[in-house]
């Protein structure tokens, strides 16, 4: 119980730090403007395509801005504590190192939830302005984006527990890009033609990638929305459970690394 209380205290402070940070507010505002700009883009296309443009662009921007914010905040979260030496006074309190890391992560999830909420809200606003009815599947799409961001931010925290922000940023973004391709790599592996047939020596690498990397395409339902295919709540909850599994593993690995560190 006490442990949970301490984790929540760290999470609340992490959220407060972001909320009071000018760069974060600027980033959020930029993303908000980006989504509103889909209104302008939609003006450039013929009338019957306008609805599709605001639908696609909006979803893409939420995902894009969310990933950028998740990577930036994720890699800086622990690094800033070390760089500013605030970690000394914090870890000398009755606070386990794992509580610190889990609290930091939860605080970051709170920030990402706010980001998703603000960006999702602005997307719905744009949809309403363009006379597109806000369907339940749009809410599900935003929820899935949040699931994806939770994995991306956990990857960022894992790398930032032992690496510099720049390297952590590059690695995290790399994992995001590969994660989005896992579905296609899987398809290629089962296909009777293509890369793994022409270059069979790459097959073990492809299999390793699909086994280790998270399949982030699970969280992208833009195609289903476009084709007006139903996205069930079962699918959403299974995808979020999949995200939770990855998050638990990634944070546990980050804790293991963090536990052994000297704070010189």
């Amino acid at each position, binding site marked *: 119980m*006490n442990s949970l*209380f*301490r984790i929540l*205290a760290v999470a609340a*402070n992490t959220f*407060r*730090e972001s909320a*009071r*940070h000018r760069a974060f507010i600027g980033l959020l505002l930029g993303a908000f403007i980006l989504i509103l700009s889909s209104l302008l883009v939609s003006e450039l296309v013929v009338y019957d395509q306008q609805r599709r443009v605001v639908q696609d662009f909006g979803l893409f921007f939420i995902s894009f801005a969310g990933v950028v914010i998740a990577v930036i905040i994720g890699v800086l979260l622990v690094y800033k504590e070390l760089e*500013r*030496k*605030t*970690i*000394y*006074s*914090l*870890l*000398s*309190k*009755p*606070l*386990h190192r794992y509580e610190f890391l889990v609290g930091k992560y939860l605080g970051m999830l709170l920030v990402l939830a706010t980001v998703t909420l603000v960006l999702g809200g602005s997307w719905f606003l744009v949809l309403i302005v363009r006379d597109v009815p806000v369907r339940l599947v749009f809410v599900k799409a935003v929820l899935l984006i949040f699931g994806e961001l939770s994995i991306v931010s956990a990857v960022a925290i894992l790398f930032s527990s032992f690496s510099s922000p720049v390297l952590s940023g590059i690695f995290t973004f790399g994992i995001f890009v590969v994660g989005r391709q896992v579905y296609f790599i899987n398809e290629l592996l089962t296909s009777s033609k293509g890369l793994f047939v022409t270059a069979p020596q790459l097959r073990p690498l492809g299999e390793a990638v699909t086994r280790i990397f998270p399949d982030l395409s699970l969280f992208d339902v833009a195609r289903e929305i476009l084709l007006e295919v139903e996205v069930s709540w079962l699918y959403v909850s299974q995808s979020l459970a999949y995200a939770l599994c990855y998050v638990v593993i990634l944070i546990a690995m980050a804790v293991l690394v963090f536990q*052994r560190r*000297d*704070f*010189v």
Partner: protein
Amino acid sequence: MTQPVLTVQELKKTFKVGFTRKVVEAVRGISFEVGQGEIFGFLGPNGAGKTTTIKTIMDLIRPTSGTVRIFGRPPGDMEARLKVGYLPEQPYFYDYLKPGELLDFFGKLYGLDSAERRQRITRLIERVGLGHARDRTLRRFSKGMLQRAGVAQALIGNPELVILDEPLSGLDPIGRKELKDVIANLRTEGKTVFFSSHILADIELLCDKIVIIDKGKLRFFGTVKDFLKTGRSEVEIVVAGAPEELLARVSSQGGKVDRFGNRAKLVVAGDRSRELVDALLAAGADLEAVVPRTEGLEELFVRMAGKGEEAAR
């Protein structure tokens, strides 16, 4: 016998630095104990290994070998942590917070309820002299004000052991005086204070016991009184009309003689002063002053550090 508040035994810490992973021995097997209610000074020149030792005590750094026990428990133990307050060297805190918010956050980590936190925060902010700055964020604090906020956060859990790393650095004379009062008051409250400092006059005044380390090795552990006893005792004699042959004898026997016309200032070892005074009086010289001089902590410390350097060469 009561259990020591803090025990450090054969503590060693090595770091591997740089591309070549060169091994640097920061702390080389130091041992000491801090008893209940003591004000304990931790001395050493820059790079002696003081901060590394303190960070090991706080479990921020894991020792290469040796043990640290706080109230008989390992430093990472939650029961031990609840009883310790720590001020890091050059403290940095979340600069987007106001002092009350910082203390509130840290108070939550000690499991204090909101009423208790409120009460302690109000008292502590006044105690460290930050009452006028309670509505300012920490990014607008001067170095001295940050140091005060640092002391307040070290005390938020009402700790039995307070560990302060260079608490007096960066403070103006008034700030130093106020902080020394805070430390002295902690003693009257029965708390144990362990602090490192370069300002030796403060250590001499405040501390019961000291540890001196240099290049990671223990040089002295004991009471300030015992340490001062290891110093040289000299006597300064100012005299007029002393015979020249007597002055020459003092000089040839290792004493120091400064002449000012008819007068002279002599500095001799304490055990030889009585004999010299008798001889001067017998020769009809006019004694103007006889002043005993004892080597202070600072002089002794500099001499000890110098010896350490010579040994290293």
